[in-house]
C-alpha cells in the first residue's frame, strides 16, 4: 500500500520539491505518491511532509489562518516524519532572531529547542553554493545551496548533521530533519532519497 508524501503549499517553491521527490521515488523504484497539500483535510492523510523554502513569516501566518498548524502539530507528535527546508526549519524551531533586526515574534511550531539566527550569512548578496558533507547519514560532498540562510548558533539535544564554517546548518531529531540549505535546487537527490526511505520505515 503506497506511501503518501505531502508538500505544504501555502507559500514558497513547491514545484521544485515535487519534481525532486518524484525523481527520487523513480530512482529508488519505490511505491509512493507525491501530493501538494494546503488544507487540514489534505494534510491529515499524509505519511510524510516537506515544508519548503520561502518566507517563514508568511507560511506561519497562513497556516495558522486556515488551521493547518494544529493538524501538523498532532501529526508530528504522532510520529510523522517531516523535512524542514530553510524557512521550514525556522518554523520547526522554538525561537528565532534576526542578525540585524533582533528578536522576532513570529508564529512558530517550536519542536526543536535550538537557537537560530536568521540571515546569518548576510543578505541575498552573500548567498552562496558550497560543498558540505553529512557523514552520519552517508552523504559526502553534497552541493549546498545557501540562500539568505539561517544558522543555528546553539543547539539543545539534537543531532548535528552538518556544519559549515563552524555553523550548524543541518540537524536531525527523531523523524524531524532540518536544513538551512536548499536540496531541491540541485541535481543531487541524496537528501530526498534519504527522506523517502525515512517515510517508508516509519510507515511500517
Amino acid at each position: 500500500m503506497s506511501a503518501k508524501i505531502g508538500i505544504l503549499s501555502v507559500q514558497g517553491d513547491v514545484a521544485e520539491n515535487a519534481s525532486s521527490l518524484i525523481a527520487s521515488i523513480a530512482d529508488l523504484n519505490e511505491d509512493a505518491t507525491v501530493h501538494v497539500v494546503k488544507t487540514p483535510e489534505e494534510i491529515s492523510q499524509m505519511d510524510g511532509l516537506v515544508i519548503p523554502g520561502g518566507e517563514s513569516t508568511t507560511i506561519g501566518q497562513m497556516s495558522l489562518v486556515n488551521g493547518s498548524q494544529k493538524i501538523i502539530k498532532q501529526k508530528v507528535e504522532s510520529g510523522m516524519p517531516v523535512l524542514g527546508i530553510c524557512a521550514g526549519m525556522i518554523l520547526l524551531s522554538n525561537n528565532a532572531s534576526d542578525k540585524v533586526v533582533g528578536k522576532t515574534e513570529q508564529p512558530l511550531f517550536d519542536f526543536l529547542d535550538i537557537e537560530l539566527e536568521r540571515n546569518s550569512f548576510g543578505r541575498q548578496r552573500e548567498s552562496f553554493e558550497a560543498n558540505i558533507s553529512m557523514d552520519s547519514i552517508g552523504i559526502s560532498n553534497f552541493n549546498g545551496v545557501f540562500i539568505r540562510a539561517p544558522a543555528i548558533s546553539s543547539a539543545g539535544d539534537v543531532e548535528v548533521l552538518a556544519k559549515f564554517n563552524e555553523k550548524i546548518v543541518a540537524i536531525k531529531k527523531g523523524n524531524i530533519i532540518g536544513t538551512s540549505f536548499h536540496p531541491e535546487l540541485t541535481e543531487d537527490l541524496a537528501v530526498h532519497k534519504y527522506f523517502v526511505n525515512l517515510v517508508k520505515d516509519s510507515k511500517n
Partner: protein
Amino acid sequence: ISEKSESSDVIRGSSTLKRGFAHMLKNGVVMDVTTVEQAQIAEEAGAVSVMVLDKLPSDVRKAGGVARTASIRIIEDIMDSVTIPVMAKCRIGHVNEALVLQETDVDMIDESEVLTPADELRHIWKWDLTTPVVNGARSLAEALRRVEEGAAMIRTKGEPGTGNVAEAITHIKKVNDELRAIKSIYDSGDNQDLVRMSREFKVSYDIVEQTAKLGRLPVVNFAAGGIATPADAAYLMSLGCDGIFVGSGIFNANDAPERARAIVLATTFWDETDKVKEAQKMIDERQSMLGLDVKTLELRMQDRGGSA
C-alpha cells in the same frame, strides 16, 4: 571575502542563486512602500517582500518631472526594520544606480518603467550583477528579451498608478496566448515556423526552443500594474501568475492595513473562493483609490523602453 573552510570554493551570483531567490517569493505579494511604517504594515499583513520608492506610482504620475531612485538612507532604514526581503527601483539603462543599489545590499533590483528612463535604447546587461533583477513585460517577446539580458524574474507591466486592472489582464493573456502558440508549433516539429517566430520576437532561436519545450517562462512571472482589490489578485493568480505586485492600490486607499491583509489572503487562497470572498469582504469599495480609465491617459508608462 573572508572564509575559512576545509578545501573547496564557494560560488556567488550564479543564475541558480538569483533565480532561486525568486522561487522563494512564489505565491506571495510584494508591496510598494515609501516609509518604515508602511513597510512594517506590509510585513504584518504577510507580504513576502517590500519595494521602496520615494513616491507611489500614482503620485509619480501627478508630479511629472524627473523621477529617480529612492534615497539610500530610507532604503537602509527599511532594511533595518523588517525581516522580509527588500527591493528598490532604478531607472532603465542607468547602470550605476544599479551598482549603488547592489552596494546597498538590497535583495532585488527592479529596472522599472515607473522612473524616468536614462537610456531607452539599452537596458542594463544584468549578467554582470550579483543581485537579482526583475523587469516588466507586456508580451512574451519583451519577457524573453529581458531574460536574455540576465533578468532573474519577470512581471507584467500593466499601467501603473491607475488602479485599473484591465491592462494587466490583457498582458498576461497575451503572454499565455504566445506561449501556447510556440508550444504547439514546437510539438508539430515545424522548425521553419519556429525560427520565424524567434525573429518576430527578436530573440535567439535556442531560448524559444527551450521555452517551447518547457511550456512556460524560464523564470518566475508575477502580475503587476493596477491591482486594487483581492478579486483582482485572485483572478490574476487563476490566470497563471506566480505572484502579485501591488503598487498604489494599497497605500493610496484609505483602509490600507486591512486591504493589505485581504490581498495576501486572496493571493494565497486564490483557488478557494469562499476565502477570497472573506478577503473581499475586508475591503470597502468607497475607500479604494479612484482609478484612471486607460483610454484617456496622457503618459503611458508602459511604452517606455518598449522598443528595446
